């Protein structure tokens, strides 16, 4: 098993409120991991710690041979300069609940922004690749539209293409369908299903139990900043050991 991500003892507090209480997690290449848990349990914060949008108070995340945000130096974690941190962050694609498409750029402009600015590739080269990605998420026809002219489901598919354009090692999804009207959820999940089939390594925070059951290789349940249950979806979802996990699942499955 080839590890892609390994989180070690992640702790995070906001003020005196300890949101993450020492989380450990391993994700292998090609694996699809779904994180479930009640609202406020710290799922988003954990995901944001993994790609250093939030800096953990202690603990660290190892991604493909390097520790995010630090260099190991004489037994201590030395903070990296911002430029190097950003280079590491670009190895992790992130899809947000509220899409966060660049409002002043067209669909195509959104997708080529990363490769052009961060990788320094030419526009011609990136545009061809970007159109392939837009094709893949079914948005090639809207390449010259602006985000404000798209539906939520379309925005999220563009956001996925934008992340993929950086050819990340791992894709992180933070409730990618929670802000969508019910009839638009399916088109986004379909794109994600295809990614999973193609072997993309994915960490998905979601409330879509059906998606987790069908697509996830492994499911993790977080409650109050701790991982309370982890295992194959069939086992965790139908026969959880932890009583609090059982009560959470019975609520969402009801």
């Amino acid at each position, binding site marked *: 098993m080839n590890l892609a991500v390994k989180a070690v003892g992640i702790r995070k507090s906001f003020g005196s409120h300890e949101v993450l209480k020492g989380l450990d997690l391993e994700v292998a290449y090609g694996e699809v991991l779904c994180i479930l848990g009640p609202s406020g349990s710290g799922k988003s914060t954990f995901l944001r710690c993994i*790609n250093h*949008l939030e800096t953990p108070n202690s603990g660290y995340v190892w991604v493909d041979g390097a520790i995010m945000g630090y260099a190991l130096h004489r037994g201590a974690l030395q903070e990296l300069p*911002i*430029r190097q941190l*950003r*280079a590491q*962050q*670009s190895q*992790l*694609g*992130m899809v*947000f609940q*509220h*899409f*966060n*498409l*660049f*409002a*002043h*750029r067209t669909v195509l402009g959104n997708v080529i*922004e*990363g490769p052009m*600015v*961060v990788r320094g590739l030419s526009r011609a080269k990136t545009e061809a690749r970007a159109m392939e990605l837009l094709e893949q998420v079914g948005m090639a026809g809207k390449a010259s539209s*602006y*985000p*404000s*002219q798209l539906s939520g489901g379309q925005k999220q598919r563009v*956001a996925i293409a*934008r*992340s993929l354009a*950086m050819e990340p090692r791992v894709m992180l999804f933070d409730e990618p369908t929670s802000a969508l009207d019910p009839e638009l959820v399916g088109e986004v999940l379909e794109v994600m299903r295809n990614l999973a089939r193609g072997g993309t390594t994915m960490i998905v925070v979601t409330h879509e139990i059906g998606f987790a059951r069908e697509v996830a290789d492994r499911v993790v349940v977080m409650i109050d900043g701790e991982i309370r249950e982890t295992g194959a979806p069939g086992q965790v979802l139908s026969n959880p050991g932890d009583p609090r996990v059982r009560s959470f699942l019975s609520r969402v499955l009801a």
Partner: protein
Amino acid sequence: MTQSPPKPTSALSLPDLPGPDTPIRRLRHPGRWLSGITVILLLAMIGRAFAVGQIQWPVVGEFLTAGVIITGFGWTLLISACALVLGVVLGFVFGIMRHSENPILRFAAWLYVWIFRGTPVLLQLLIWFNIALVFPRLYIPGLVDERMVDVVTPFVAAVLGLGVNEGSYLTEVVRGGIGSVDRGQKEAAHTLGMTPGQTMRRIILPQTLRLILPVLGNSAIGMLKFSSLAATIAMGEMLNAAQRIYFINGAVIELLFVCAVWYLVGTTVLSIGQYYLERYFGRDTAATTSNRRWFKGWARRPAVEGEV
């Protein structure tokens, strides 16, 4: 419990209902006619008062295109443009500094705003004009070594005074604009690997610019008018030129009216430019702004082709 249907207020039974093509008569608005005519009458009276008043309209017409006035207007435009550019540059520099992680940079930007927004612009103009009293020589080793009075001409003083003052206002505008760009935009840029500088240049500032464009338009218009203050520091812009003429020929009101005409021409052109600039930068939110017109009926084309 059964509920009886609500009784219709005026009895119109079903067999009496008119056909689908029954003509519709619009409601009359006699009040609108009345108020409209009143206003037109008032305007006519004011217009007549000026027409028969102690103004020699031929003199107004004569000086409207006089060389001195036109040259003055040229200076007015030049001062305004230079001061506006200076103000915008300072506004962006200090506005970005207000968002710096470095508290000393933040403080410096705050101090700038505090001083230059907190004192009258006329006072600042006079201080710039007399700056040689404080620093008789401008000496930057290896670069400049000159008498201050030669460097800070009335033109330079006007541009510095108006531009630095405008910059303090625009600093606050830019700071607010940056702050109101959704935080998610920055996070998305970071996850793509963009550095803070790249994020600012490519993601935050373009969106800030669109937000503050209406304010910049007002700044440009305001600047054109405030440039008349430079008349007080012997800068030969339009108002100063007009004053020098009427000191000689005594046609005070006539020459002030000439200035008013040219200022109106300038501000009107700027307003039209502002409308088109806003439309251009607003094209990503065209759906929400396409119904807003700079002046109703001025531009009839839809903001974006194919927009519903």
